[in-house]
């Protein structure tokens, strides 16, 4: 590295950015990470939970040291209507096995720890600087521009998040489309850990991840979620923009109503709201991945659209880590070959293709479309489940009816054919 030029400049202190900085600095490269907030994580938000597999590979046993919240050993999925909630509750030791475990996290805390790891590895980190533009000469990205200042590097890595205005400036992608992104709103509600353990049936440091379809997103494409942290609950809603604007309930009202739902209210009762956050989630899957490689530049994490929402599981942070690892490998190879051209950097794409990042995005490429095309998941099915449960459990002295007849009545409301069609399409898109 010459005095005035870095090997790599990374824009954005999220998971992709800090992990890329860590990996490159560890190999002795001169790395500068620039974050617009006052610390890595200060602009970041998750539901949320990180699946550990990809970070575990890079930092073995990270969960013992990192400020994770709880190890998720209980998965719940609910179909919710205004007056009811039908839940599938899965507890398993398998969820906690190292390498396939997952953790609730709070990004303002977690990303700062990753920043420290990158710093310890030798990366230089500047917080509180917004990168306004990129230095581009003859189509080659040569560094970054912040106000009057310019900083140069052999490679610039854009880890500037879902809104990546820098990727837009390069013309790598247009404006985000309303059907490609969902907006999430979340409350962090403080409660004593013993209360959380009692209310959510958690042992010690274990915790629950819980997703809800139905009324949390007012029957629109979206979901409600709860993640248990050490001494707080993350409770929120998320909904796809294109569908959200067809409805008539505002996002903040959705969140408020979800929190006050009779099945939820006792869980957060007495808790103290300590933060209210909002963020966009890239949910378009493979179809929204923009151009991610250029002369002297790579795009990683949310900025590259690397995220999957499967309804029962939401993954973004493990993709951020995975793509950062692929980018770091590509940069190391480019450094070795002294070739940072778009052609050489295609190895980033190859590494992604070989990794779970592209394999999973490709595997599930039809799924985002399926969710969008199947509004019954968010509306008809929660109602059907609620009505069927009511037939089973509500005793009101009316003479009993044959079970089959009773159940079919509710299935017929949705329609047998629709049910079969949705099941078929859903399974095929998975």
């Amino acid at each position, binding site marked *: 590295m010459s005095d005035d030029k870095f090997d790599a400049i990374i824009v954005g202190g999220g998971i992709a950015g800090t992990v890329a900085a860590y990996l490159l600095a560890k190999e002795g490269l001169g790395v500068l990470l620039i974050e617009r907030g006052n610390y890595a*994580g200060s602009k970041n938000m998750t539901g949320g939970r990180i699946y550990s597999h990809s970070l575990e590979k890079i930092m073995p046993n990270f969960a013992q040291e990192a400020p994770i919240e709880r190890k998720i050993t209980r998965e719940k999925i609910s179909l919710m209507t205004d007056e009811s909630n039908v839940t599938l509750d899965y507890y398993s030791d398998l969820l906690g096995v190292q390498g396939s475990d997952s953790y609730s996290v709070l990004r303002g805390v977690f990303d700062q720890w990753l920043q420290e790891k990158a710093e310890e590895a030798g990366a230089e980190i500047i917080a509180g600087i917004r990168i306004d533009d990129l230095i581009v000469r003859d189509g080659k990205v040569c560094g970054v521009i912040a106000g009057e200042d310019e900083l140069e590097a052999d490679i610039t890595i854009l880890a500037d998040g879902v809104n990546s205005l820098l990727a837009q400036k390069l013309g790598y992608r247009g404006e985000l489309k309303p059907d490609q*992104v969902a907006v999430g709103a979340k409350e962090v509600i403080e409660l004593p850990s013993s209360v959380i353990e009692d209310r959510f049936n958690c042992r010690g440091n274990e915790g629950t991840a819980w997703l809800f379809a139905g009324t949390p997103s007012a029957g629109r494409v979206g979901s409600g979620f709860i993640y248990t942290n050490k001494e707080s609950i993350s409770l929120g809603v998320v909904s796809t*923009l294109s569908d959200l*604007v067809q409805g008539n309930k*505002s996002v903040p009202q959705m969140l408020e109503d979800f929190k006050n739902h009779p099945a939820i209210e006792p869980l957060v009762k007495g808790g103290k709201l300590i933060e*209210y956050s909002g963020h966009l989630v890239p949910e378009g899957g493979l179809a929204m991945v923009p151009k991610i490689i250029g002369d002297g530049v790579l795009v990683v994490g949310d900025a590259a659209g690397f995220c999957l929402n499967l309804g029962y599981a939401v993954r973004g942070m493990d993709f951020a880590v995975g793509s950062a690892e692929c980018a770091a490998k590509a940069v190391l190879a480019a450094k070795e070959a002294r070739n940072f051209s778009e052609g050489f950097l295609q190895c980033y794409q190859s590494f992604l293709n070989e990794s779970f990042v592209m394999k999973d995005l490709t595997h599930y490429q039809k799924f985002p479309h399926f969710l969008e095309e199947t509004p019954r998941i968010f509306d008809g099915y929660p109602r059907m489940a609620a009505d069927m449960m009511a037939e089973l459990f509500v005793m009101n002295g009316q003479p009993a009816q044959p079970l089959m007849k009773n159940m079919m009545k509710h299935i017929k409301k949705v329609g047998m054919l629709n049910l079969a069609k949705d099941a078929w399409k859903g399974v095929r898109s998975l």
Partner: protein
Amino acid sequence: MSTVNVDQKLGLNKFYVDEENAHSVLKSGDIDMKEFQKLMLVCPAGLYKLDEKGNIHFDYAGCLECGTCRVLCGKTILEKWEFPVGTLGVEFRWG
């Protein structure tokens, strides 16, 4: 169901408001109300408001910087939407 008071919730957040420079600005003059109503629905911070007299209000101070309004109305009723300059804007302590 009770009506949500988002301002009260935002009051618990840490904000460093850029008093000199608004990072997000509505167009002046006649605003397409259909577009404005979209933002009343989607903005998680509830920053796009309509009062009893039918006047529209928008205050960037409580912005969570999610970019939702840019995606939906960046080309219609927003004059600009960019990130606040370094150090300013919302600061998530928990996130």
